[in-house]
């Protein structure tokens, strides 16, 4: 996925600092930590890359987006029995702009491809995709159907695949833990 050390990251940092500076013009009171410049934070903690990775790793927000049967297990994942919040997978978000990971749960029809692509493009940059269940992974039982694509990986780059029809909610938990490992640099692409 994206490399955070590159030019893009530097540009974003410059832009952010410019914004903060402009908003602080003419102020004499020292701003609190929320409005501090990114460079000031990095002065106190020199391991920026690791810090950002660590915080990303521990706040993976999935998108509230269900296609078919597997969405039922996705809902179960969000409920009380599988206590997902303890590992940082917070509440499902209704808008793609606040999300880090898209869980594709269910079969992908030809008419849904543009919509899914659009949702993926609306998500903010370090974004991940989990293919949840047989249908999203390879077409599953609908392999011979005329309206189903054989796997979401024909459309989007997938990070973790989960097998099963449908996989248990615990499998999604395991998949998200694997994704955390990947974000943290434990697993190479």
């Amino acid at each position, binding site marked *: 996925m994206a490399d955070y050390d590159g030019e893009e990251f530097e540009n974003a940092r410059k832009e952010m600092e410019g914004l903060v500076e402009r908003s602080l013009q003419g102020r004499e009171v020292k701003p609190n930590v929320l409005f501090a410049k990114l460079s000031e934070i990095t002065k106190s903690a020199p391991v920026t890359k690791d810090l950002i990775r660590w915080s990303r790793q521990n706040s993976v927000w999935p998108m*509230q*987006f*269900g*296609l*078919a*049967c597997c*969405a*039922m*297990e996705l*809902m*179960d994942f969000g*409920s*009380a*029995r599988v206590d997902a919040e303890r590992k940082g997978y917070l509440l*499902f978000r*209704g808008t793609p702009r606040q999300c880090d990971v898209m869980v594709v749960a*269910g*079969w992908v*029809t030809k*008419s*849904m491809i543009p*919509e899914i692509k659009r*949702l993926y493009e609306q998500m903010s940059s370090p974004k991940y995709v989990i293919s949840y269940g047989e249908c999203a992974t390879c077409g599953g*039982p*609908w392999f*011979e*159907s*005329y*309206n*189903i694509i054989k796997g979401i990986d024909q459309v989007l780059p997938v990070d973790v695949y989960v097998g099963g*029809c*449908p996989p*248990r909610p615990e499998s999604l938990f395991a998949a998200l833990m694997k994704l955390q490992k990947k974000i943290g640099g434990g697993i190479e692409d």
Partner: protein
Amino acid sequence: MAITRINIGPVHPSTHGVLRLVVDLDGDTIERVEPHVGFLHRGVEKLVETRMYMQSPPYMEKLDYIAPLSYDEAYVSAVEKALGVEVKERAQYARVILLELQRIASHLLAVGTMCNDLGQMFTVFMWAFKDRDMVLKLLEEAAGNRMFYVNMRLGGLLRELPPDFEMQTLDVIDYMERRIPEYERYIEGNPVFMERMKGVGVLSQKDARNLGVTGPVLRASGIEYDVRKNNPYYVYDKLHFSVKSLEKGDNFSRYRIRMMEMRESIRLIRDAFDKMPAAGDMLGMPVKLRSPAPVNKEVRVSRELPRGEALMHMVADQQKPYRLSIRSPSFINLAALPDIAKGYRLADLFSILGSLDLVMGCVDR
């Protein structure tokens, strides 16, 4: 005032799947709703024509993924009718028990997600899913999988119910019986919920009849029609239960009717365990590649699913169906949405949609 046309979906947190709604608004009042379906279409009816009879139940279960067993049973009984297979008596009771458990699980999910749609009531969703998991665990013990069971075989079930199944089920339904009043106290004590449900989304008795809605939506509008009572199958005519109906036909009645039906299902399960014969077995025919030759060329089987009446119309061929046509309750109920929602506010659209309890997999097929 000018009409504003807005688009909702196909990916929206409150549409319970991928449903696209094009809404014409006059200010905040709904002038017209146009549901666009087909985002989950995968051609089940065509796929089934290429499969042997007993290869199809997994496809049928994926139609209505909130109550998979019910569709499985409807399809298998259509095949049984076509091939002239009798269902063993003990298996009939076991099927009734499993179907009613599935109905409880389905209605719990319906109530939970409906409250979730109305905002600020995530508690009911959590409760409903916790209790639904208990029911799913029972079904898992009986069938072997958590969500898709494929438990029905020609003339019976895949296997006997586990030895302690009766005890466990009675425990769970005793718990459920204590739990339902708790739900009601919590939900109906919430003024926001009551404000958004009572008197909103009224479907009159005449409209309900004309639009052909089924299941809880029909019964909430004052028509006492239930396939289990009006056209009984299996041992439903030997068991004690009553069909509930309410007069008003608003969102609140549709929610109430689901709570009442859960109570009736609990009664049914108890009664079925009491009357279940101890002798005999419930094993069906093992799945073979070649099935017996069909006796009836064309069969219709009507079943009361948690969402309403489903009709399986099958034209039988030697080894596989020549044609299978499915009348799905969700599709019919969705067709009533434009008539119900007209004249209400935009925010009421989702409470109406939640109370109709649609499954998009069943709508699109």
